[in-house]
């Protein structure tokens, strides 16, 4: 059980997929204007990612096997698209407000490189079923945590006296850069 926790904590803090692996930047930049939207987006991405890493393991292990390995990326994308579409319908039904506020970024989860990246990493480091789920969950929670923190910072920066040239996404990029600088402090924490 210890190594599962280690994977989980590892992917949330040490090698955070947004901060150290620099994956999933477009929703990270696009949705983090407001706290509620980033929470919603985080929840949606966690839901999709956990399902995706679970189903990608099953597909890779049982359906494709070694000789069809070249199909992994293709099949993963199809599965992820299916799951995202399913999630969009669930969200539209349960909370139309969140669906409207997330807007275009909800279907965009399909193209989120983190959502495809993590299953591929799972395959690369051939995690077993439980490990890949924890890895997916950890990656998504790391993504959500960092995006919510980033949304908090951006909401406070709204009122800052930022020079005209840097207003909006420019200062957001700088802040994201400094955030990943800070996350480098964790490097080496987990061997």
């Amino acid at each position, binding site marked *: 059980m210890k190594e599962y926790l280690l994977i989980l904590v590892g992917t949330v803090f040490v090698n955070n997929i947004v901060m150290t692996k620099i994956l999933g930047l477009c929703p990270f930049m696009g949705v983090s204007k407001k706290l509620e939207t980033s929470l919603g987006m985080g929840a949606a991405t966690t839901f999709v990612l956990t399902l995706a890493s679970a189903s990608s393991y099953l597909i890779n292990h049982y359906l494709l096997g070694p000789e069809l390995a070249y199909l992994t990326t*293709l099949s993963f994308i199809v599965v992820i698209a299916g799951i995202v*579409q399913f999630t969009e319908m669930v969200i539209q039904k349960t909370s139309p407000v969140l669906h*409207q506020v997330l807007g275009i970024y909800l279907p965009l989860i399909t193209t989120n490189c983190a959502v495809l990246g993590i299953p591929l990493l799972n395959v690369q480091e051939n995690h077993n079923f439980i490990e890949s789920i924890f890895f997916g969950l950890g990656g998504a929670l790391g993504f959500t945590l960092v995006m919510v923190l980033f949304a908090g910072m951006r909401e406070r920066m709204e009122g800052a006296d930022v020079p005209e040239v840097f207003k909006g996404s420019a200062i957001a990029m700088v802040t994201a850069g400094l955030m990943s600088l800070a996350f480098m402090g964790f490097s080496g924490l987990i061997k």
Partner: protein
Amino acid sequence: MLAALLAMSAIAIVLGAVLGYSAIKFRVDGNPLADKIDAVLPQTQCGQCGYPGCRPYADAIANGEADINLCPPGGEEGIQKLAELLGVEPKPFGSDAQPKPKSVAFIDENTCIGCTLCIQACPVDAISGAAKQMHTIIAAECTGCELCLPPCPVDCISMLPLEENVANWKWKYPVYALRPSK
């Protein structure tokens, strides 16, 4: 090669089934967004946005036909609220639709001939009067939409901007020199 096709089609079939089922189960209709947009609009029903009133403009924005900066009475904060609601970038006003200070219509009583054309034109029934009787505008109800100006045959209606008095005076945004006062 055959196995690959089989595998992919298997995935496709499974996903198709799941999505088809959930499409039926999670059907949703109606568009609650239009009501929310209508709640933000200033309800002057003035038509300056090109739509016959606020509700049609709200529906137009909801299904994406209309832009959010066509409502001068809503002013700057109107666009801000619409942008926040729709999660888009707030756009400044176009050159034609500049917001004007809030004003109220006023009927010059010596030229009014009591033809009731303005009464029929007023979207919020803010003009009291009858055929051949004197007409007057209920200042409290008038939204300043200027729809009563064109139909008046004798042009006796003029728009008076609301002047500041002790009751509706507002504290101003504090301005202070960054340099020391001396």
